[in-house]
C-alpha cells in the first residue's frame, strides 16, 4: 500500500517538475540560454498569489489570474532589459548572468515573505480523500490536473498556432527563421513570458502537503534543473519522462530510505534528483533525449 501511495505522491511531484522544467526547455530551445532564474520567478509569481489571495482577500482563482498577468509582464521585462543585450554572447556568460538575475530577484521576492512560510490561500488546504487505504490530497490531484491541462495546451499551441510554428522554426534555426519573416525577438519575449507563467503555476503546488511558500521553497524548485538535464536540455518529451522518473524516484526514496538505509541520513530524497542526474549523464552525456551536439572544426 505504501508503494502505491508513494507512486501517487511521485506523480504529483512529477507534475510540478514538469511545469517548472517546461519553462527551462522553452527558454533553452528558443534562445539557447539556460535560465537559472526560474526558481526565483517561481517565488516572485507565488508571492503575488499570496498577496492577492490572503492579504487583499480576493477569490483564489482571480488572484492566480492576476498573478499570471503580472508574471507575463515581469517575464517580458526581464527578457527585454537583461537578456536581449546578451544575444550572441557565449552560452556560459548568459547562464552566469541569469544566476546574477536569480540572486537579485530572489532577494527582492524573498523580502516580501516573512520568516515563516506563507499560505497561498488556495481552496485545497489540508483536505484529502481516500481510495481504499490510499490517502490522496486534493492539492496533489489539482497539481496533476493543472499540469496535464497546461502541458496539453502548450503542445497544442506549438503544434497548431502560427506563433507556435514560429517558435519551432526559431528553435530549429534562428537565422533561417529570421529570413522567413519570423520575428525572433517576439519568440524570445513569448518564451520568457511563458516560462514565467509556468513558474507561477508551479508555485501553487511546490509544497504538496501544506501548499505554503517561503524563501526556502527555492531549493525545491531548483530540483527541476536536474530533471531538465536528465531529459535533455532541448527535449520537451524528455523533460516529461524525466519528471516522472525523478518524481517517482524521489517519492519512493522518501518512503523507504529511512527504514532501509538509515545511515545515509534524513532528507536523502532531496538529493536523489542530483544522483539520478549523475548516473544518467555518465551513460548519456546529452541527457536521455537531448540532441547530440554536432562538432565541426
Amino acid at each position, binding site marked *: 500500500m505504501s508503494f502505491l501511495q508513494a507512486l501517487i505522491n511521485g506523480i504529483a511531484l512529477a507534475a510540478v517538475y514538469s511545469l517548472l522544467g517546461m519553462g527551462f526547455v522553452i527558454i533553452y530551445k528558443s534562445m539557447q540560454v539556460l535560465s537559472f532564474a526560474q526558481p526565483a520567478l517561481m517565488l516572485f509569481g507565488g508571492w503575488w498569489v499570496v498577496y492577492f489571495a490572503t492579504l487583499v482577500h480576493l477569490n483564489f482563482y482571480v488572484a492566480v489570474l492576476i498573478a499570471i498577468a503580472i508574471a507575463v509582464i515581469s517575464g517580458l521585462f526581464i527578457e527585454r532589459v537583461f537578456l536581449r543585450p546578451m544575444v550572441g554572447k557565449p552560452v556560459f556568460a548568459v547562464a552566469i548572468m541569469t544566476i*546574477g538575475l536569480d540572486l537579485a530577484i530572489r532577494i527582492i521576492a524573498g523580502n516580501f515573505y516573512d520568516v515563516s512560510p506563507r499560505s497561498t490561500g488556495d481552496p485545497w488546504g489540508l483536505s484529502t480523500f481516500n481510495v481504499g487505504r490510499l490517502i490522496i490530497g486534493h492539492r496533489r490531484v489539482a497539481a496533476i490536473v493543472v499540469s496535464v491541462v497546461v502541458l496539453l495546451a502548450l503542445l497544442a499551441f506549438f503544434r497548431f498556432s502560427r506563433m507556435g510554428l514560429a517558435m519551432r522554426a526559431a528553435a530549429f534555426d534562428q537565422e533561417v527563421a529570421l529570413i522567413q519573416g519570423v520575428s525572433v525577438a517576439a519568440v524570445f519575449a513569448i518564451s520568457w513570458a511563458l516560462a514565467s507563467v509556468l513558474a507561477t503555476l508551479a508555485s501553487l503546488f511546490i509544497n504538496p502537503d501544506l501548499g505554503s511558500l517561503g524563501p526556502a521553497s527555492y531549493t525545491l524548485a531548483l530540483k527541476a534543473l536536474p530533471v531538465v538535464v536528465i531529459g535533455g536540455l532541448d527535449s520537451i518529451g524528455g523533460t516529461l519522462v524525466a519528471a516522472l522518473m525523478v518524481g517517482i524516484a524521489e517519492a519512493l526514496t522518501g518512503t523507504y530510505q529511512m527504514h532501509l538505509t538509515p545511515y545515509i541520513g534524513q532528507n536523502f530524497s532531496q538529493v536523489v534528483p542530483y544522483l539520478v542526474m549523475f548516473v544518467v549523464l555518465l551513460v548519456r552525456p546529452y541527457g536521455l533525449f537531448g540532441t547530440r551536439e554536432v562538432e565541426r572544426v
Partner: protein
Amino acid sequence: MRLRPGLVTDYRADAGIFKSVTQRIWFGLLLAAAVFLGAGGAIGPIRISSDIMVLLAYAMFASIGALGLNIVTGMAGQVSLGHAFFLGLGAYTAAILGGVEQTRQAMDPVTGQQVTEVVLRGYGLDMIIWLPLAGIIAALAGLIVAPVATRLRGLYLAFVTLGLVFLGEHIFREARTLTGGAGNGRPTAEYRLFGFRFDQDGEVFGIWMSKQQKLFFLGLILLLVMGLAAKNLFRSRVGRALAAIRDRDIAAEMMGIPLGRYKLIAFTISSFYAGIAGALFWAVVGRLTAEGFNFLLSIKYIAMILIGGVATVSGSIMGAFFITFLPKVVEGLAGLPGLSHIISKDPAGMINTFQFEQILFGLFIVGFLILEPMGLYGIWIRVRNYWKGWPFSY
C-alpha cells in the same frame, strides 16, 4: 616604445614570470610595502588596523581558492559550479584532523554501564599535517569527479558540478560525528604549527605581533607560494595544453593533447587549491556549518574570477580582494545619510546589508559580463595603456 605593455621582443620574456623589468620592480615594491605595513609600519597616513588586517588575511586565503577555480574554469575552460564542495571538503578535513575531540557520557543500552561516546571526532593534529592533507583529500575528490567531467561539456558539466554541491551539503549535514550536523556545525582546526600559535598574540623573532598580523603573514607567504606555482603552471607545457583545450577542444585533441588526462590534471590541481583555501579560511572563522557550503559560495568564487579577470593570476587575487572587501564597503554605504533608511543593518529592515550585498553580487556579475569581460585585470590594462601613451593616448 620598448616598455609598451603587450610588446614582447623575445621568447624568454614571453614565457617569463615577469614580462619586463618594470613589472619585476613593481612586484618587489608591492611585496615590500605589504611586509612593512603588515609588520605594523606606516607609510604616511596609511596604516592597517587589526580588523582590516584580518580581512586582508581572509582575502589572501580566498585568493588561493580563486586561483584554484581559475585553473579549471579560466585556464581549462571547464566551468565548475562545484567549488564550494571542494572548499568544504578541505575545511572539514582540516577540522577533523586538527580539531579537538568532543565526548559525552552516555549509558550503554545493553550493559547499562557508563561509557564515553564520541560526539565529534577530532585528532588535534599539527598544522603541518592538516593543511597538506586538506588539499590532498580535496584533490582526491577532484580526481574522482574528473572522469565525469571528461565526458561532459559546457552547460552539462556546470550542472553536474552543481549537483556535487547539493550532494556535499547533504553529506556535511548528515555525517554528524564528523561535521556536527545541521545547524550546530563544529569548531575548526587549531592554528598551531610546531607549537607556534597563529591564533594568539606573541613574539616572532623578537617582534611583538598580534594574531591578525601573524595570519596576515601566513596568508602572504602561502599566497606567494601558491600564486607563483599557479603562474608557473600557466606558462608550462600543462598550462599551454589547458589553454588549447579551452580555446577549442577538438583542435587541441588533433594536435595530440590527450583531453582526458589534462582535464584530470586541471580538476585535481584546482581541487587541491580549493582544499587548502577552505582549510585556512574556515580555521580563521572558527566555526563550520554545512549550510555555509552552498550554491551561493560557488557563485561567490565564480564572481571573484569573473570580476577579477579570467585565466590570470593577478586577476584571481584582485577579484578575491574585491569580493572580500565588498561587505565592508556595503556597511560603509549603509552608514551614509541618504542610504541609511534603504539599506539597514537591522536584519528585519527593508533591504539589510547582507541582502544588498547579494544584489550587488548579481549586478556586478551582470555588469562585468556585459561591459568588461576581462574583469578588473582588463580595466587595469586599459588604464595602464592610457597613461603609457599619455599625452598621445587615444
